[in-house]
């Protein structure tokens, strides 16, 4: 059984008197431990697909089985619970809480998972150490560089032992050197810790870190191939 199974997923929004179809029947399986890059021009529907995969949005029709559980019809709170336990997010704009230390940002997923305070701190410290920010765990986001902020976000995404990490243009706001650093971190998470990583990007050289590249065009899967490194 695959970790993610999408069958005939569509998504449409009402637009005046017609429906605007963003996704037109996506069928997709992603195996545990894979590293997938989703590519496509803007307006292709890749962000919508990402939101559905990440349980932030619901499809209009189709079925979505995540880790053996049907999720397409769950309530907002049930989806919040799935996101908390199964998914870690890394965003283009880092999305750290301002005026909140790196340590407390990393603790956040555990706050909503009801992990006791003492254990939260210990696990957050370990996660920050893994991304090389042990010395800076008490810094606020505005005291950290972009690359460091993104590493805090990655620590936050992995701290709850979530099996899947979604990264939406994670290097979009970073320079080349930082980007390489971040992509190497993802590769390590995938190879050493077996985390499944789904990456949305429009840059070919970023997509090449992945093992599998899926191209979305006009709401449909245009190509889906293994990436030969």
């Amino acid at each position, binding site marked *: 059984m695959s970790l993610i199974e999408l069958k005939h997923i569509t998504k449409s929004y009402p637009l005046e008197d017609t429906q605007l179809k963003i996704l037109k029947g996506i069928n997709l399986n992603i195996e545990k431990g894979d590293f997938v890059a989703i590519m496509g021009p803007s307006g292709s529907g890749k962000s919508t697909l990402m*939101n559905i995969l*990440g349980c*932030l*949005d619901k499809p209009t029709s189709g079925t979505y089985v995540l880790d053996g559980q049907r999720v397409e019809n769950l309530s*907002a*709170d049930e989806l*919040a*619970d799935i*996101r*908390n*336990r199964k998914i870690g*997010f890394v*965003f283009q704009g880092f*999305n*750290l*809480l*301002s*005026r*909140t230390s790196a340590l407390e940002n990393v603790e*956040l*997923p555990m*706050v*909503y*998972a*009801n992990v006791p*305070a003492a254990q939260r701190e210990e696990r957050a410290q370990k996660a920050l150490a893994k991304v090389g920010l042990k010395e800076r765990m008490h810094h606020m986001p505005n005291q950290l560089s972009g690359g460091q902020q993104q590493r805090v976000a990655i620590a*936050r995404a992995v701290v*709850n032992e979530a099996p899947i990490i979604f990264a939406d243009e994670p290097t979009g706001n970073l320079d080349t050197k930082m980007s390489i650093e971040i992509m190497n971190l993802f590769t390590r998470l995938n190879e050493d810790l077996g985390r499944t990583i789904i990456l949305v990007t429009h840059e070919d050289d970023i997509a090449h870190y992945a093992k599998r590249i899926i191209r979305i065009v006009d709401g449909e899967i245009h190509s889906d191939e293994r990436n030969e490194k």
Partner: protein
Amino acid sequence: MIDARTIFSIATRAIKANKMRSILTSLGIIIGVAAVIVMLSVGHGAQTSIQNEMKTMGSNLIIIRSGVATSSGARSGHGSKPTMKKSDGDAIQEKIPEIKLAAPVLEETAQIVYGNANWSTGVTGTDRRMFEIKEWNLSYGRMFSSTDIRSAAKVAILGQTVVNELFGDVDPLGKTVRIKGIPFQVIGVLIPRGQSGNGMDQDDVVYIPITTAQKKVMGISFPDQVKMIMLQAIDSQSTYTAQEEIRELLRQRHNLGVNKEDDFVIRNLTQMMEMMESSTKVMTILLGSIASISLLVGGIGIMNIMLVSVTERTREIGIRMAIGAKAWDIRWQFLTESLVLSLIGGLVGVVIGLLGSYLVGVFSSLPTKVSLIYVLMPFSFAGMVGLFFGFYPAYKASLLNPINALRYE
């Protein structure tokens, strides 16, 4: 659901992040709570002083005074035409079952002398019924006996103030004082009662037997004359129902024809007191409600700021939701924030309110009285205001869609 301590620290962090704004927001609650406390303490103080007065005056009181004298069309005040006799009171007590006691009163201000010391005070001729009505006991010595009354004995019972002024540390019992030059033996001293509600010293009194007052001390124009009669009814209701019977009886005793006006005045003190008490109660409620409006306005201020805060922090809400916060977690976060804001405001308001009531009590003639319930009430009201006005912003925050919230700039 996340634990209370974490949610509390999230709320206090948000409040501290915008210190000036938080202070201004709480200010509405601070002023509201302080105003409610001061207003209630003023109203409560007035009520308490009336109740105290009622207690010391005696309960269920009716007072009968002589009527109004009219000479060449000019009417003098009550009691200007003496008509009441001690025997009128005795008859009322005997014949009207609603009336328990009838104490005669004949009073005058007089100079009272002991040795080199002298003091001017009100001298009242009465009998032991007066002390029963006022529920006023002797701290030492003895009460007027029937023999004292019958024989118009020259004995006196003193209030503590008079004792202090005339005797200092000397034991007054058995000593002789002169009232209007007539020697009286001190037989008893009353338990001190302090100031009455309107600031009169209740211990500045001298009591002598009614018969002595009538025959030896005060000038009277006919035998058995008194200035007034103090009646005590068996209960508060009877002070109303007995009035007509008293009137009938007195008209009959004074031989007043059908066309003649009453030559006496009946005043129901219980009625007066009850009216005063209920009007201060209304005043307390009124003052409290007006002050509560400012508390309500403070609550609206909190709602306003919380709505701004939710909008400003849309992205934060989106991040929290993406990471796994449920609607309830978000709702609690903002509700706790407005609750903490209003409770801090409430606490500061309590301190200022207590200080304010104290200052009003010291620097104005208004008596103030602070009681725990009148402090807890506005404080918990502030908490409820925080919850009530915090609910809508918190609810609005919890309905946000994480995708839109994350995209919010």
